[in-house]
């Protein structure tokens, strides 16, 4: 897995403010290649056609929720190996267990610190620096 500067991350959340916060955090830990989308449908084509190492997706979204998005990715040959971190509003054991069952690599509880964001990504891709 590439180091921070070469890592490509996709952020999916229906709230622009949350997407901006996550991307700001990514920049602070050296991840400069990130793209954001308001929903899974919008992110889908971009992930298929552009380099993507990690997807950080909200769970609670209108339309396709985070778990449905994860299941769809894992069922798609071109996306099944992309790392997936689920953003949740609380540390819900049942939700995290379902996410793991569907192939999530990690989870992140909001509100989170930049240090936690880094830690969660490193648990998936290895050291960023």
């Amino acid at each position, binding site marked *: 897995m590439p180091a921070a500067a070469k890592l490509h991350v996709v952020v999916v959340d229906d709230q622009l403010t*949350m997407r901006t916060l996550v991307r700001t955090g990514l920049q602070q830990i050296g991840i400069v290649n990130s793209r954001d989308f308001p929903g899974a449908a919008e992110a889908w084509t971009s992930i298929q056609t552009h380099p993507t190492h990690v997807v950080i997706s909200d769970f609670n979204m209108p339309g396709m929720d985070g778990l449905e998005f994860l299941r769809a990715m894992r069922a798609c040959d071109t996306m099944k190996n992309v790392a997936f971190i689920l953003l949740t509003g609380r540390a819900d054991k049942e939700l995290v267990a379902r996410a793991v069952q569907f192939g999530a690599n990690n989870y992140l509880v909001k509100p989170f*610190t930049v240090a936690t964001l880094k830690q969660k990504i490193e648990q998936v891709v290895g050291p960023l620096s």
Partner: protein
Amino acid sequence: MIQAAAQPRRFLNPQDGYVHVQVTQGETWVTADAREVLTTVLGSCIAACLHDPVAKVGGMNHFLLPDGGGQDRAARYGVNAMEILINGLLRQGAARARLEAKLFGGASVIAGLSDVGAGNVAFAEKFLADEGIALVGGDVRGTRARRVQFWPVSGRARQLAVSDGRTLAARELMVAEATLQQESEAPHDVELF
């Protein structure tokens, strides 16, 4: 799943026949029950009252960012407080595009203290603008604390001035600092690896 950390106190007020839901700092309440009225008392704190006039559902949150949202940790907390409210409304049938907001609070009630209230108002107004949520009313800034009532089904709101808000404002700041500290230390208590 999004869930408010604390649950407001509810009681039936025999004088007006409404169930009063007291939304205190850190709490959020969403309802489509026309018998409920949401109430809160604000110094520097902000209460965002959101309402969908078609789905006839509404809700209120109540938060304070001790540095006015100017630092990452506080901004994250504020965004989360707004998201809890919005997601609660969407779950009860609201549509994001129809949401209307009224903002209350953000007063500067302690002379000489940095204007935390104004920073909170700026944060909330920017959040609504960024998210495309119409700000249709409310009352913010000023120097007096406020008691606010919000009828979530109709979207109607009213406020009364509170005579001495200084004690209230000092308590709000203490709670906000403690909450942020707690949030930053919140355990990710589900172990995956």
